[in-house]
């Protein structure tokens, strides 16, 4: 009992339990939204012909799909299916949703990684520059740029950039069929460049803000003053004492943004015809393939929770204060 209690007091264990509880909630919500949708699996697969079915046929179909059972039973049988890898089938193409998702996911992951790299490459140096003289021209200037990056919608930048390149230079790698990194790395990277750049710039803004704020906050800490007082050379002070500590919140914000990109890239994937997971949801919606939408959204939400949990773990590993607690 005392062991259990101390386990509960462990903030990490509590964090994991919280994530599990969130996942349960996510599954209930995803399930409920599908029930709210007009029509059911029968109208989804038979279309208007469903109206021509006799009551007997309808009843047997309802039994076949399991939608004659009470909601709670339906939820658990659906959940059981999901947990054993049965994400349903797209009715028109007869494709397994799990297969579709496993094909789309690596593409979105690649895009997310590239975008985060762009964001870090822009945001961290920018934040350090701004914080190096707070209130000066470089600080206000870069803050203004970051505000603009936050305010310009990604779909606008993407549309303007891609149509300009295509019209002016006839360069449109995304007009060709999508190539995976393994099949044709050269074409793949060309197809990924603009999307990653557009997303990266928009995500660079929060990375910039976090870097700037955390450098400014840490510079005023007592231990920095102590280090300076005992004669640590400025270069070493900046690197070992300020930067290393200032980057901890940057890890957290990058993790959050990475999770956001898993579903938030939907607009960019659509504009650049990248067959990632966001586009899969969108196609599912336009084709009224609700099984595809439901399962894909569920997968994205689960990944989002897991990425956030992982970010927390990494945060605890790199932050000595969090580790000590």
């Amino acid at each position, binding site marked *: 009992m005392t062991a259990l209690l101390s386990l509960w007091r462990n903030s990490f264990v509590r964090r994991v339990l919280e994530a599990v509880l969130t996942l349960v909630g996510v599954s209930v919500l995803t399930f409920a939204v599908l029930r709210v949708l007009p029509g059911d699996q029968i109208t989804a697969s038979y279309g208007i012909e469903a109206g021509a079915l006799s009551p007997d046929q309808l009843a047997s179909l309802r039994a076949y799909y399991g939608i004659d059972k009470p909601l709670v039973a339906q939820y658990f049988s659906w959940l059981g299916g999901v947990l054993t890898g049965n994400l349903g089938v797209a009715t028109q193409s007869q494709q397994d949703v799990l297969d579709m998702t496993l094909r789309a996911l690596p593409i979105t992951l690649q895009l997310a990684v590239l975008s985060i790299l762009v964001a870090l490459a822009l945001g961290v140096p920018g934040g350090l520059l701004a914080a190096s003289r707070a209130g000066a021209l470089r600080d206000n200037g870069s803050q203004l740029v970051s505000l603009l990056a936050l305010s310009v919608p990604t779909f606008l930048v993407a549309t303007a950039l891609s149509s300009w390149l295509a019209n002016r230079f006839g360069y449109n790698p995304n007009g060709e069929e999508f190539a995976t990194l393994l099949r044709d790395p050269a074409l793949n990277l060309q197809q990924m460049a603009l999307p990653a750049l557009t997303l990266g710039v928009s995500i660079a803004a929060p990375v910039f803000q976090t870097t700037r704020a955390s450098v400014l906050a840490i510079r005023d800490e007592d231990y920095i003053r102590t280090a300076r007082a005992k004669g640590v050379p400025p270069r070493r002070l900046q690197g070992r004492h300020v930067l290393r500590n200032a980057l901890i919140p940057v890890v957290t914000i990058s993790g959050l943004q990475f999770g956001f990109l898993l579903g938030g890239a939907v607009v960019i994937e659509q504009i650049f015809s990248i067959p990632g997971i966001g586009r899969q949801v969108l196609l599912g*919606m336009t084709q009224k393939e609700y099984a595809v939408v439901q399962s894909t959204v569920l997968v994205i*939400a689960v990944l989002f929770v897991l990425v956030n949990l992982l970010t927390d773990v990494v945060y605890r590993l790199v932050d000595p204060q969090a580790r000590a607690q």
Partner: protein
Amino acid sequence: MSATTTAAGVPARAPRGGALRAALLRPAGVVGLLLGLVVLVLAVMGTFGLTPYDPAKQDVTQSLVGPSGQHWFGTDQFGRDVFSRVCSGLANSLRIAVVSVGISGVLGILIGVLAGYYGGWVDRVVGVLTNVLFAFPSLLLALALAATLDRSWVTVSIAIATVYLPIFARVARAPVLRLRHVDYVTASTAIGRPRLSTLFAHVVPNMWGILLVQVTLSLSWSILTEAALSFLGFGTPPPAASLGGMVYDAQTISAVAPWMLAFPGLAIVVFVVGLNLLGDALRSTLDPRSGGRR
């Protein structure tokens, strides 16, 4: 500044009018306010049909005309006046932003305040529910909701409101946690004032500043979200003008008619930049730590 600050970083007095006035004196606040006013004028013109042309009126003899004295922002492929459509699109964005932030703000703040004040199981249940909503990337959640409901500006507003509700709940909860143990709150309950009444008389009025920042930022997000939804074809249904939809329509012919892409795009950016500047100015007025020298 008029508001003195207690050790906990909580303003001791309600900064209601003061913070707003102080924020508007900053350069960012002034520029933000000016941009906001420009947008507001155009949106009012769009709402009350004061535009030079009917935004939906097609005129094939005038199709794809560049910007001129007659058509300030040019015309689209159906000969519709782009300026009139931008006004009407701004009106649409503003209406959806105000309604969605209104719904999510009122409900979210109420939920967050109650959760923070009462704590215990109320707080835990609210915590789990907000975590669940947070688990869905915001645009995806709005998209899923908008696609589920019938398409109209009302359902788009409801979809966006659902996404921002947990954000408001979380933002409203945090200051309540700090404020509920402040002396004047304890004193108020001690002299026998009911807890709920204390909450709304002494706790909530001290949070307006923080909430105002959140409202400004949420307005700008919801404009971006609505534009993205309309761009993807799940927002405001045509023939009503929406800025995101106009950018989508311009995509294929932007080489011939760049004005069709430029002006609706510029309208979104001006609107959002204005709101973000206002929000920034408010935040730096209220938060002495964020380097309020600007």
